[in-house]
């Protein structure tokens, strides 16, 4: 599936808040269809890196490319807004706190952007909502409001909302961190299903088991740098750096 090894490219990403450097010269390539997990202690910069990919947290230096187009191009303000809005349609994002639109039903959450941005008719949009909500197992709740759903159900609807734009890349920012433990699995199941469909994904997570089971590559970040990266069996079983080992000791039961 890696017909394009440089599907997502991050080149020398750098980000500071004043004097605080949260990302220090990070480079990363993700192939089409690849699933990459980013792990690391809180404050390591992993969410910032993820949010830089769709420019929610703009970089102070470096470039982000998706499928041959630079995401954070330097353009005059108006043109840039147009450009970034178009780019973001190709980059789905799932948040820790779901951020579903509370005034809209599951169906409307899914169809709003496709209707508005792709000009889908009501019927096309309904078919799309049914398809996407079925994929995440939420078809029976299609006309429920977010307040009527559990956390896991909300997150599944949020995933369907992101998928409805048919993105080239999906970003998950600690998608299960805010969930009660018994609700984590239903979301993980959905993410696994997407993995099987070879949707390119970058996942910031605290769940080592899930990362080990699903991801092709794992990046360990600490203090704004990628300390170590590799396939999960290397990172989780045989990490080379002491910092990685120390982190894993805290987060894995059978740490190396």
């Amino acid at each position, binding site marked *: 599936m890696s017909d394009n090894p440089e599907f997502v490219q991050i080149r020398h990403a750098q980000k500071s808040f004043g004097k605080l450097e949260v990302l220090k010269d990070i480079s990363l390539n993700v192939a089409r269809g690849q699933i990459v997990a980013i792990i690391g202690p809180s404050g390591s910069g992993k969410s910032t890196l993820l949010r830089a990919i*769709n420019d*929610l947290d703009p970089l102070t230096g470096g470039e982000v490319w998706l499928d041959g187009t630079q995401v954070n191009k330097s353009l005059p303000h108006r043109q840039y*807004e147009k450009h970034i*809005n*178009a780019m*973001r*349609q190709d*980059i*789905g*994002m799932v*948040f820790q*706190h779901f*951020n*579903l*639109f*509370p*005034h809209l039903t599951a169906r409307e959450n899914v169809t*709003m*952007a496709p209707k*508005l*941005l792709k000009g889908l008719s009501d019927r096309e949009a309904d078919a799309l909502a049914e398809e996407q909500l079925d994929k995440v197992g939420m078809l029976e709740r299609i006309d429920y*409001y977010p*307040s*009527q759903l559990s956390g896991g159900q909300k997150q599944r609807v*949020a995933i369907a*909302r*992101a998928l409805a*734009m048919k993105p080239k890349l999906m970003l998950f920012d600690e998608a299960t961190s805010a969930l009660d433990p018994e609700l984590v699995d239903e979301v993980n199941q959905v993410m696994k299903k997407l993995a099987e469909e070879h949707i390119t994904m970058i996942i910031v997570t605290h769940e080592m088991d899930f990362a080990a089971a699903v991801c092709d590559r794992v990046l360990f970040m600490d203090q704004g740098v990628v300390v170590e990266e590799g396939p999960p069996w290397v990172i989780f079983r045989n990490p080379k750096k002491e910092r990685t080992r120390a982190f894993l000791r805290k987060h894995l039961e059978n740490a190396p």
Partner: protein
Amino acid sequence: MGLDFTVIPKYLDIVLLGGLWTIGITVAAALLSFFGGILFAVIALYAPAMIRWPFKVVEFVFMGTPLLLQLFLIYFGLVQIGVDLPAFVAGVIGLGLHFAVYNSELIQTAILSVDKGQMEAARTVGLSRSQALRKVVVPQAVRAVIPPIGNNMIALLKDSALVSVIGVSELTLSAQRAIGATYRPFEFYLLAAAFYYVINLCMEWVQRRIERRISLSR
């Protein structure tokens, strides 16, 4: 001279007609104040400084001066510069803009208290900032302030009595006319008060229906 309510039936039609005018002016001004309030709130928060600052001055004038004076200005003042508005229209504009400014204050606070994750989520699916405001942020803000806006609308109903001074034959002025013919102030003012009360009840009922339909926590 005791109370004599038997004079009422003869002049009831005048007072009823006044009641209809009051309802008309209240509904028109309420709509203007609602949509105007949303517009003002968005301008106050997001418009470039060049538009925002003159707007703030207008806002200050509407908030800081008596409604009665504003009505005089709009109805009698504007004529001098060639804008001759019918009394009803002048009344609707005066009441509507006055309360639009108050609604705008409420909506601004509500917009700022909408979780910033909402804007982020809307932007990540590709919506522009203005689309995100229109489809996601403002609708939530407005829903959150329906109860206090409802209170403003009841205040608007009561202040609609002020447009009697520019000659709109609404409820208060109609009652005064009936009094002029009968010299029975107590009876007709009581009647007018009862009418205001009934209209008030209707507005509260409408407000509750709206709240139930669009509330965020169903």
